[in-house]
């Protein structure tokens, strides 16, 4: 097997970050144009987390995500077209147009969903991991959730169960400092979230989520621990959401200056600088990459536009199994 060069690897990771960013920008535009309906929560600023973590997972590993999951979905391998069509509510979407932005699901890439309920994915990931363990499969279930979820009872119940039963769950907290519209300083008694693992006997670490390579390194340690049958691991990635919580958020809870300050640590900019520092930056290739990504987004939108609406007769389908056992 040919090993990937350092330059190729970093370029591939950068391309995925840029693909996520451009998909989000396009989604915002299409939401304003009412092509996308439902709610829309964008991932801008947090791309380094999904892409860095996904580097350490295999196609067999499962991912459980939140309602801000376009990035994880792309990085796990769901096509931009299937995601865009889903947001358009078209049958060609990965959830056949019924999930929308918040509920992307894809069995082929083992993507077990966005989830509109904060913390709702954590118990599910415990179940996936328990099933894997019972079947003797050495797969990792990586469960993404935000700092807000750490306040929900489900976080604590799931951490305890996974530790008690030594389950292969990678608890991946994307701490973007805001539980919707309230700062972590008003919602968490202990703001160093990684410290919470100790109470459950779960090894834990915190990492700068704006530094994709640091995320990758920390996630690799975590994933190897989990894959080795040592039970769960809790990794806190400290990041920042550069856009509002959703498209309806007037952002009364934070200042423009704060957002501008964080933009200086945009994970894509930081990564580009890092590649330049390593002396393997190629401007022409970067320009080509951007245009290639633009084509991919354009194709995704065209795919979504050309998609078909669910027939009205199907409104009442898929509530129960059809024709006996599924």
């Amino acid at each position, binding site marked *: 097997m040919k090993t990937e060069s350092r330059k190729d690897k970093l370029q591939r990771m950068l391309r995925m970050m840029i693909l996520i960013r451009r998909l989000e920008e396009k989604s915002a535009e299409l939401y304003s144009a009412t092509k996308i309906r*439902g709610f829309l929560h964008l991932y801008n600023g947090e791309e380094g987390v999904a892409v860095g973590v996904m580097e350490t997972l295999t196609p067999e590993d499962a991912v459980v995500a939140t309602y801000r999951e376009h990035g994880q979905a792309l990085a796990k391998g769901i096509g931009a077209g299937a995601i865009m069509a889903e947001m358009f*509510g078209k049958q060609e979407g990965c959830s056949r147009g019924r999930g*929308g932005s918040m509920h992307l699901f894809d069995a082929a890439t083992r993507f077990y969903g966005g989830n509109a309920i904060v913390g709702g994915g954590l118990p599910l990931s415990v179940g996936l991991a328990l099933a894997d363990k019972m079947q003797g499969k050495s797969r990792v279930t990586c469960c993404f959730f935000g700092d807000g979820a750490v306040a929900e009872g489900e976080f604590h119940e799931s951490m305890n169960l996974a530790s008690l039963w030594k389950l292969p769950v990678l608890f991946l907290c994307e701490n973007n400092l805001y539980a*919707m519209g309230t700062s972590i300083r008003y919602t968490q008694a202990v703001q160093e979230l990684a410290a919470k693992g100790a109470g459950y006997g779960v090894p834990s670490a915190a990492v700068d989520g704006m530094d994709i390579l640091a995320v990758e390194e920390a996630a690799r340690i975590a994933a190897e621990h989990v894959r080795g049958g040592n039970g769960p691991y809790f990794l806190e990635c400290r990041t920042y959401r550069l856009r509002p919580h959703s498209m309806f958020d007037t952002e009364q809870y934070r200042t423009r200056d704060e957002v501008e300050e964080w933009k200086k640590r945009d994970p894509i900019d930081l990564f580009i600088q890092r590649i330049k520092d390593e002396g393997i930056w190629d401007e022409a290739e970067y320009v080509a990459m951007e245009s290639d990504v633009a084509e991919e987004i354009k194709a995704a939108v065209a795919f979504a536009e050309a998609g078909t609406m669910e027939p*009205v007769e199907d*409104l009442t389908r898929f*509530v129960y199994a059809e024709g006996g056992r599924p």
Partner: protein
Amino acid sequence: MAVMNMVQAINSALALEMALDDRVLLLGEDVGRDGGVFRVSEGLLERFGAERVIDTPLSESAIVGAAIGMAAYGLRPVAEIQFMGFTYAAMDQLFTHAARLRSRSRGRFTSPLVVRTPYGGGIKAPELHEESSEAIFCHMPGIKVVVPSGPYCAKGLLTAAIRDPDPVLFLEPTRLYRLIKEEVPESDYLVPMGKARVARQGGSVTVVSWGSMLDTVLKAVEGRDAEVIDLLTLSPFDVETVLASVARTGRVVIVHEAVLSCGLGAEIAATIAEEGILHLRAPIIRVAAPDVTMPMPRLEGRYLPDAARIGRAVDQLLEY
């Protein structure tokens, strides 16, 4: 009088009750510094301080549980849950404690609290953000369920709910938050709980509805001799007003946007059948959503009862 939408009317009720009664306080996700997800509590933190307008973590069970504790000690907490779909995380506390503290202690402890939550569809949001599951809560003895259909009754009912000695689930029709504007007194007033409102008088058919469906029902019956009853309180509902109307019209349509099976319409229909069947000149018709999860926005219009469907049901009875 001032012209207000429902958001302003609810904000006005909260502000007045907080000013009149030191025991009244708010708690919930984003209610303080951010002013609430739909801006209902805007300006209240600045006016009443962080001890009475409490920003909480995302902990729905603890929000309602803490409200129960405060209420048991004599405070009057008003908890906000951001969407009805998120109340499911708090149902344990609501059902196992709020609903039965009075009964369990034979009246020695009570939980006079209000849980406010936006509910219902028509805002192009996906499933859990458009829930209309009022019947589940009506089924639990010990909780009162209230739902206004416009700004005037929203303010008066919320005031009544806050002053009520028992736990009240106060449902706010999300679609109507800014859609309807009407004259609302600036001072405090009560719209009594447990009492339905005749929203339109008529003699040939009674349409019973509430909350988010009411404006659609009123449009649907235009040009027809229909009486429209706005229930306002769903549990316990005003049997007397419903039966009195049925006694005059002999025909009933019940309209709700919640799914059909075991919806509140079934309880109302059963009550009419038990207590007023001799007045009926036609079968009772329910117009409701099909028994499926609220679909994505593209099929939303097919899911929610619309004026055409309601109008057809009314005509069907008139021609019976």
